[in-house]
């Protein structure tokens, strides 16, 4: 996969499968971005799918095996650093950000877009997606709050 914009896909996004599916399809031609995650993100995702969303373990294992087989380029490693000790809650995210220098970070709550020396944060409302997203009919993501950092 040779997308030009690396984007960290966090577990809170991957575990919400309709959103995960939409984003991963957008990462295909014409490759709007290049999805990235780590072993820890996948572990958190699979743990969440089983324990909180009650996916059968066979389905979780199938999802992980397919991701490993066909989206292996998404895995990142080598980010382990003292950063992880500084802030346990978001240490991994910070480490990935520094490692990959992504211009976007897609989390459940916000999408961060870096342009030049500025960053724009789009807050996503915390509510479930009720309609199945279609690749050719993407749901509108209202920006309830946009601010420059």
């Amino acid at each position: 996969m040779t997308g030009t914009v690396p984007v960290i896909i966090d577990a809170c996004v991957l575990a919400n499968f309709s959103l995960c599916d939409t984003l991963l399809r957008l990462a295909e031609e014409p490759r709007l971005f290049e999805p990235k995650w780590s072993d820890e993100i996948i572990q958190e995702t699979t743990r969440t799918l089983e324990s909180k969303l009650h996916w059968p373990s066979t389905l979780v294992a199938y999802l992980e095996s397919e991701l490993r087989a066909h989206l292996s380029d998404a895995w990142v490693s080598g980010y382990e650093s003292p950063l992880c000790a500084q802030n346990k809650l978001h240490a991994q995210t910070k480490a990935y950000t520094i490692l990959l220098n992504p211009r976007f970070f897609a989390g459940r709550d916000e999408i961060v877009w870096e342009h030049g020396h500025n960053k724009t944060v789009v807050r996503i409302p915390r509510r479930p997606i009720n309609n199945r997203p279609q690749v050719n009919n993407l749901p509108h993501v209202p920006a309830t709050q946009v601010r420059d950092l």
Partner: protein
Amino acid sequence: MGIGMDIRLSEDLRSRVEQELASGRYRDSDEFIEEAVRYFLEDRQRGQRRRDALRRIGRAVDEAGLYEKVLAPSQE
């Protein structure tokens, strides 16, 4: 022994090919073009396999009735 093909490139692409050849990593333009075409075809195949995998995953999750099941904020 390969089959000869007459390939015309834009000035920009031709310039970039010549830059690559100047790096010394390729024996000649034939070798470079062959590698580029092979990479393109393999990359396209990988993309098709990824899309097939996404379709299979989506179908499996849908059949399990879990496609639209999402985490409530209180579950996170």
